[in-house]
């Protein structure tokens, strides 16, 4: 609190901006007084990153061009782009990419939409709000092993709760659905877990962002007679658009890297039909010791993820520009 006092006094005379302000690109204030100032701020982080992630990434890229032998000092033949050619021509790899894509479509839009709704609901004062916020965070902190196991039971074909609900309560199906014994139903079940587990995370990020939306904008909108939806569309959403993009990109990366839930619920089966990139890479690397192939697949995946993230970013940005 003490750090804020002088800041407030100093900024009282500054007129509040009418829109959530966007930094001006290329303005004089964005040019550092000395060229080294931004580098000095970024240096510790970049050094850490370069050493512990950048260097292993480069090593991993190098490995992807070899038939790499795990034991140091033994022969690792250079194979050029062979591992990449193998990955691109491997139907199981593409099955895994398609599965991750399907998982992404089933989880990311739903997670973001639902979490946004609950974040808005939880943002305004209500009875026991802190308690609710904690409860919504609980799935995020519950161990993957435990929740994957429980979801497996929920979706079990013989006496799982989901089948009981569909069959005995809704009478929607005449016999139990073998959820985890077929590709798409299994992916749907894993997606349900994905949404359930990630909701709380998104809500926490959105709540932090909602705290930054200026209250006077709501008041202005209320004076204009805006209803709840208009307030959301014209004030809330534009105010947190950057955060929505951030959450979407993190969720997209997360969806392509879905791992423990698949491993524990289906282990990629039956017959590899629910394999996702990470379970497949893990198997190639640590079960089959084919590290070159696994690395090559991971770089192909990185390109795919970058492309999808960029596409998503473009779409969100263009919408904003169209609205102006």
């Amino acid at each position, binding site marked *: 609190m003490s750090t804020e006092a002088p800041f407030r006094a100093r900024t009282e005379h500054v007129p509040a901006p009418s829109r959530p302000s966007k930094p001006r690109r290329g303005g004089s204030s964005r040019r550092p007084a000395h060229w080294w100032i931004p580098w000095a701020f970024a240096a510790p982080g970049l050094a850490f990153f370069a050493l512990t992630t950048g260097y292993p990434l480069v090593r991993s890229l190098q490995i992807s061009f070899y038939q790499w032998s*795990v*034991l*140091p000092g*033994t022969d690792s033949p250079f194979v050029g782009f062979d591992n990449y050619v193998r990955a691109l021509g491997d139907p199981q790899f593409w099955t895994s990419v398609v599965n991750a894509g399907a998982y992404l479509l089933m989880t990311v839009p739903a997670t973001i939409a639902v979490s946004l709704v609950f974040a808005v609901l939880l943002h305004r004062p209500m009875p026991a709000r802190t308690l609710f916020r904690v409860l919504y965070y609980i799935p995020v902190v519950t161990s993957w092993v435990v929740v994957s196991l429980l979801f*497996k*039971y*929920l*979706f*079990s*074909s*013989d*006496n*799982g709760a989901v089948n009981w609900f569909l069959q005995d309560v809704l009478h929607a199906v005449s016999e139990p659905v*073998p*959820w*985890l*014994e*077929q590709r798409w139903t299994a992916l749907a079940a894993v997606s349900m877990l994905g949404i359930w587990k990630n909701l709380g995370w998104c809500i926490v990020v959105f709540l932090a962002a909602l705290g930054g939306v200026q209250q006077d904008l709501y008041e202005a909108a209320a004076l204009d007679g805006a209803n709840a939806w208009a307030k959301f569309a014209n004030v809330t959403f534009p105010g947190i658009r950057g955060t929505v993009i951030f959450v979407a990109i993190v969720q997209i990366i997360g969806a392509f890297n879905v791992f423990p839930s698949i491993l524990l*619920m*289906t*282990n990629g*089966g*039956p*017959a*590899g039909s629910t394999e996702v990139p990470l379970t497949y890479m893990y*198997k190639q690397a*640590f*079960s*089959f*010791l084919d590290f070159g192939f696994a690395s090559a697949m991971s770089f192909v995946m990185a390109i795919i993820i970058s492309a999808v993230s960029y596409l998503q970013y473009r779409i969100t940005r263009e919408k904003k520009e169209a609205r102006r």
Partner: protein
Amino acid sequence: MKRSLVLPTIALAALTGLAACGVGAGSSQSAPSGNELSPSASVSGEITFWHAYSAGGGEINALEKTIIPNFEKLHPGVKVHDVQVPSSDMHQKLITATAGGALPDVVRADIVTVPELAKLGVLAPLSDVMPDFQSWAAKMFPGPLATNKYKDKYWGLPLDTNTRVVIYNQDALTSQGVSQVPKSLDDLKAAASKVGGGKFIFAEGGSGAWNLLPFIWSNGGEMTDPSVSKATGYLNSPQTVDAIQMLVDMYRAKQIPGNILGGSGDTPTSDGLAKGLYDTIVDGPWTFPGLTASYPSFKPATEPMFSGSAGSISVVGGEDIVMTQQSKNKALAAEFVRYMLSPDAQQAMGKVGQLSAEPALAADMASYAPYYAPYLEQLKTARPRPATPQWAKVDDIFTKQVQLAFQGKVTVQQALDSAASQIDPLLAQG
């Protein structure tokens, strides 16, 4: 004992190979290290031992409170650091440590990984470096011993063993009008049609080689030739196809629950057995403590693996003890290996659920727990899975193709033809 006639050829081959390298062991190339690692040598210093003993079942207690302290008392001044690694993560940790040159001295390794680690070059060949190797090898059941062989050398010794037998629920069988537990594959097929209404005659928890080989072998089928160099003609032989076909038919007729596809989330096999949902399962000795704890009133009964034209042949599981090339104190490591195989250590582990692979200790084992007896009997004919460094891939291909057949996407013959043709080139790599 008619059953003993079907002692697997692999085990015979193993014994022959053993005799051969026993001759070569102490002589020329490894003479200096052989002397170093002789049992009479004095040992000192420290070693590290990686294992996947489970914390729940008293195994860790037996190791850390009894076995290691006794070993350290026997050799004053030495220190054994033991590291428990969850079994599902052991392979990953071993491989990463291999790449980083950070392996321990001694490892308790799953029997199917020993040929792979040997090929990788991380293991010391015990048949070369331990002058008394042959005397230890001679004490072991042939099946578990054979899992240590790769390229005419032995890279480890069996530390513990297990197999799978039929466990059944007599009350459930009786209530469904099956008066006697099925003893053969034919009995199983015949009884299956009597059971229904959400109940199942038999349940199996997966479709890997570990799950299905007992059916294949008992039916006279094979996975590979005896020298593990070829799958075509064995994996897709009529007997193998028949065995899988029978299970596929039962699954598709809803006489076996979805567990057989692995990870279906259906009631686990031992759970379903106790609840009377499943009449029979085929599983290992570890099933019993769990059943006793969760279902105290349930009395599980056992029978040998369902027999077929080749008899009742189950699959060998368990762990081997191996020494790494990176070990800086091989003398102490060898001494620790000897102690782990000694009656003291084997009996301490036997009391907490680890079955010894030494026939001489069978009577002791049977006295620790009544449920050991059927396993000791089954072990006389049980066979190890084919010993190949490519095992992880072989099993993966097999599992995937068989699951396609279970799903009805291909015929059993097509699945096994395809699996065999994919496995052949792997086995050719050796």
